[in-house]
């Protein structure tokens, strides 16, 4: 569709979007700036400094938590991506099957389910199974939550793919599995990658579910940040947060580069 008269820059557009984006971005920008503030007080600008970054790298407990979080995020995102992609394939290509409603229900509910409920229920399961709490229980919990997001992302892409492409592949000699691997999979790879990154960042972000399912001595970074934040603002936290934001920014940029390189037509970079 060509740009119609109605799609244009107006005073209303610009005002609404400027205010909206200012609201969304200003707090983060302020946080990043203050992470370089030499002063301990937020009101006082003590000059640019990397003091709080040094402090973080000397904080053994924080470093351990960060390492734990990265491992949980990487492992859970990977399992979630595999399971979520399989679920998306079953939902978009499986037509009707027994328990389909239950299946899709179980996959959509966690998207909005209050985290306290998911966290509590998983903890009770782990206690009942007498599973030692730590890395694996948090990883399983995060996988359960994030695979639902992966499913939605991949499912919406699969739904856009013209089914006649798969028919053409079969017509040219592919059995269904070959048709999927040689035609469908290459087309959904960018959305699978987007799903992985979404799962990774969601895991890196979670406090509530991790608090329920983790054990002593295996706190994740958000849990540590959270317990520090409850005691008030600490400039070191600003520095940690800035680094997390930088990490996520790098991941997103890499992803958009990757999807641009693959140059798949009609692919939208939007995760939701």
């Amino acid at each position, binding site marked *: 569709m060509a740009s119609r008269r109605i799609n244009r820059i107006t005073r209303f557009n610009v005002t609404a979007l400027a205010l909206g984006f200012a609201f969304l971005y200003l707090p983060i920008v302020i946080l990043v700036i203050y992470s370089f503030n030499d002063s301990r007080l937020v009101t006082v600008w003590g000059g640019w400094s990397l003091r709080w970054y040094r402090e973080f790298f000397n904080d053994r407990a924080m470093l351990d938590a960060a390492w734990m979080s990265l491992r949980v995020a990487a492992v859970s995102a990977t399992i979630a991506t595999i399971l979520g992609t399989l679920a998306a394939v079953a939902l978009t290509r499986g037509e009707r099957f027994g328990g389909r409603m239950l299946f899709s229900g179980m996959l959509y509910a966690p998207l909005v389910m209050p985290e306290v409920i998911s966290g509590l229920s998983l903890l009770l399961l782990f206690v009942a199974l007498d599973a030692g709490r730590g890395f694996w229980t948090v990883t399983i919990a995060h996988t359960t939550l994030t695979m639902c997001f992966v499913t939605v992302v991949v499912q919406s892409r699969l739904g856009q793919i013209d089914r006649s492409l798969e028919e053409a592949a079969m017509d040219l000699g592919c059995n269904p599995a070959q048709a999927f691997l040689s035609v469908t999979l290459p087309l959904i790879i960018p959305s699978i990658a987007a799903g992985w990154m979404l799962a990774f*960042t969601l895991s890196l972000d979670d406090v509530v579910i991790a608090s329920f399912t983790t054990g002593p001595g295996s706190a994740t970074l958000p849990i540590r940040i959270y317990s520090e934040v409850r005691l008030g603002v600490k400039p070191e936290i600003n520095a940690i947060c800035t680094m997390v934001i930088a990490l*996520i920014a790098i991941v997103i940029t890499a992803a958009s580069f990757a999807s641009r390189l693959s140059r798949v037509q009609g692919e939208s970079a939007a995760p939701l």
Partner: protein
Amino acid sequence: MSARRIFARPARFAAIAPYLWMVLFFLVPFGFVLKIALSQTAIAQPPYVPVFDFMGGREAITAALEQLSFDNFKLLVSDDLYILSYLRSLTVALVSTAILLLIGYPIAYGMARLPQRWQPVAMMLVIVPFWTSFLIRIYAWINILQHDGLLNTVLLKLHLVSAPLVWLSTDSAMYIGIVYSYLPFMILPLYATLAKMDVSLLEAAADLGASPRQAFWQVTVPLSLPGVGAGALLCFIPIVGEFVIPDLLAGSDAMMIGQTLWLEFFTNKDWPVASAVAVVLLVLLVAPLLLYERLQHRQLEAR
């Protein structure tokens, strides 16, 4: 049999692993929540009785079953603390959703009416904060809202106030935090419906004599209602159970139900009551959850 069915059989095999996973880690745990909600607190490990001993044979299980009771639910009804928490949660969620709609709609509308080539950029700008850590974004507001924080500094400099105001630990701070965190969830579904709306419908309305304002209220708004519903549910349901935002930004005099559950579980170590709170919360959310599922279903599977 059709081509779709040729594909369907292997596709169904793909469901097996995620299906089993979700049954084990999503469905079954609710059974445990229900069971423990019917148990009694105990100073033990785990901190409740009865503990089912499946090795103990039939009598042991029957004996354990007899110990289950509705005492925890009676407590929830009799103690004001819980009822007030539930009510506060619903109120906060309702008010927040209304504010989100009021702020999110103009932004989504503004985005959908941008020239085509700017729309993906605006979309990215809405999504990026959603990727950045939620906890960090709440924390960013503490920086701004604290006693000697940026907001008070600016207000004092502008001579709008004579003494620093108390922002942190108030409901205003909590609402700011909630609206800030959930805004992308409101904007994205709204934008999706507004952007795919056929512009020629508005042109037709104008052609038939509607002013832009009339066209907006009589064409755009009714057609965007599915997006409004999706956005509202996507925000309302998780806000009801929200814990981190009220815990960090609101005062401690009134609690939302997520905080109450947390308190019972972590501070009071009363797992059975915490489970009962969760069961009731889930029951409250069943209707909006089902509604949300239907919307999701229609959006993702009706192609």
